[in-house]
């Protein structure tokens, strides 16, 4: 077993662990009457998506002969050698967590039955094609063939494919779903911030696998792994510090929720760039993301969409920050590449920046539109929204016949 194999095995476990981590991160932020619903929305993604992934998702997003969608060569894990099987398992964790990200936006009011159907459909109709566009390989030559990847945009671990994609899909969902009863007038503070911190810790831990795990594929590249790890680490730290400073200035306090949010914002932003930038660039990604995401979140009050847990503000905006900064900070000396892989600060021209923007805009548009239509269809058929009474009662009791926390009297 190569060192790289060991690293990918572990990284797969680490990224898998991120989905329960995300469940707790989000779960701590909702009100106590809806926490189980949030947890289940997340956990369900690592239930249903792997089944979809091994049957068709991995094949359709992997390799093909056109720029838009992959083929059926590997459906049902057909014809995969050990190393491809490992890569498939690793990527399966990414496929699982992506729709889970959306759950934070629709918190407190979405019917679980609608979510149960939405997740596999969205994965198939939005995630799979977008992944192919960016990472899809020519089944003959092994070269990038997806139309965005082939044009030259860079996205190491899924800034565009995952965070921007899920972030804008979250926006489409809440536009269709509408606001929570009482929002924004009524305060809906997090019910359990230690859970949020725990979730943040798990996410940070797992994100090292998320961003650097890919450097173990195909034998592995230790130096690249070290770079991806360091970038990820610094972006998270800088994101936290930046967010803390901004909120101290604007709101007068350092907060736990702010620190956790800054960590995630930094991690999102460095995701596309993890193996493309070097030196202290990670700090820049984190700091810019911390400031931008904090500011972006405030927009929802102005624009009036109820993105409950700020998926748009953190994941869409953080992903855009990272994707755009690549156009400035990309350094072809890190991973190897030509002048077309260099950012403005490292001798490159504006081409890379342009490709980054094209890629971002393409995913924003495609994901928003398809998600919007899908949401409308689900709303018209299954119905997206729980009855108002259930929303008041709380989704845990109404949808799941469970309670998160039972005191001494829980059984009476």
């Amino acid at each position, binding site marked *: 077993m190569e060192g790289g194999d060991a690293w990918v095995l572990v990284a797969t476990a680490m990224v898998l662990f991120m989905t329960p981590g995300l469940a707790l991160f989000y779960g701590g932020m909702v009100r106590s009457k809806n926490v189980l619903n949030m947890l289940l929305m997340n956990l369900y993604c690592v239930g249903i998506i792997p089944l979809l992934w091994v049957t068709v998702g991995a094949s359709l997003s992997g390799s093909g002969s056109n720029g838009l969608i992959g083929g059926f060569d590997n459906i049902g894990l057909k014809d995969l050698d050990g190393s491809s099987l490992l890569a498939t398992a690793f990527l399966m964790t990414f496929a699982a967590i992506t729709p889970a990200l959306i759950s934070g936006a629709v918190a407190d009011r979405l019917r679980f039955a609608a979510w149960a159907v939405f997740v596999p459909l969205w994965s198939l109709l939005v995630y799979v094609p977008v992944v192919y566009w960016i990472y899809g390989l020519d089944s003959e030559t092994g070269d990038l063939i997806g139309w965005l990847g082939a044009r030259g945009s860079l996205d190491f671990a899924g800034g565009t494919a995952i965070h921007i994609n899920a972030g804008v899909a979250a926006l489409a969902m809440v536009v269709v779903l509408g606001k929570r009863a009482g929002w924004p007038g009524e305060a809906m503070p997090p019910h359990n911030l230690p859970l949020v911190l725990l979730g943040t810790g798990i996410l940070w831990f797992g994100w090292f696998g998320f961003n650097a795990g890919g450097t173990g594929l195909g034998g592995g590249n230790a130096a690249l792994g070290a770079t991806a790890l360091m970038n990820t680490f610094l972006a998270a730290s800088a994101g936290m510090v930046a967010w803390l400073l901004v909120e101290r200035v604007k709101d007068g306090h350092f907060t736990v929720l702010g620190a956790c949010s800054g960590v995630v914002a930094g991690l999102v932003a460095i995701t596309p760039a993890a193996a493309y930038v070097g030196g202290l660039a990670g700090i820049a990604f984190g700091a810019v993301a911390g400031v931008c995401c904090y500011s972006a979140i405030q927009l929802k009050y102005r624009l009036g969409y109820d993105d409950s847990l700020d998926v748009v503000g953190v994941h869409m905006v953080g992903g855009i920050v990272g994707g755009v900064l690549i156009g400035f900070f990309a350094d072809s000396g890190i991973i190897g590449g030509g002048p077309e892989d260099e950012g403005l600060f490292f001798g490159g021209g504006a081409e890379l920046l342009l490709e980054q923007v094209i890629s971002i805009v393409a995913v924003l548009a495609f994901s928003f539109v398809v998600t919007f239509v899908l949401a409308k269809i689900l709303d018209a058929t299954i119905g997206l929204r729980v009855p108002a009474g259930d929303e*008041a009662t709380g989704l845990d009791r109404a949808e799941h*016949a*469970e*309670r998160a926390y039972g005191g001494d*009297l829980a*059984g*009476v």
Partner: protein
Amino acid sequence: MARVQQVTAIVKPHKLGDVKAALQQAGVQGMTVTEVKGYGRQGGHTEVYRGAEYQVDLVPKVRIEVVVPSGEADHIADVIAGAARTGTIGDGKIWVTDLEGVRRIRTGERGADAL
């Protein structure tokens, strides 16, 4: 004859904000709130854990206590009832108790002055 009375209301938790606002509007300067559980006509709900169903009869409610000058108790009860009513079963009860007296700990003031 008692100069102060206590109005006790059991209401639905999500109506507490409205009740508080209505009391503020009505000039009430203070109240005390407790998270309680209620059993009543509203009935409970069913929970299910690994296939075992349980009937849970107690539902979350909020208990509001307001001490007011005697003359105002009925009006205050009206205010609470108005704000807490949803028209559905389980809206709750309000009752009034005579008090022997009330004082403010900080100043030692008594009676209506303590409120």
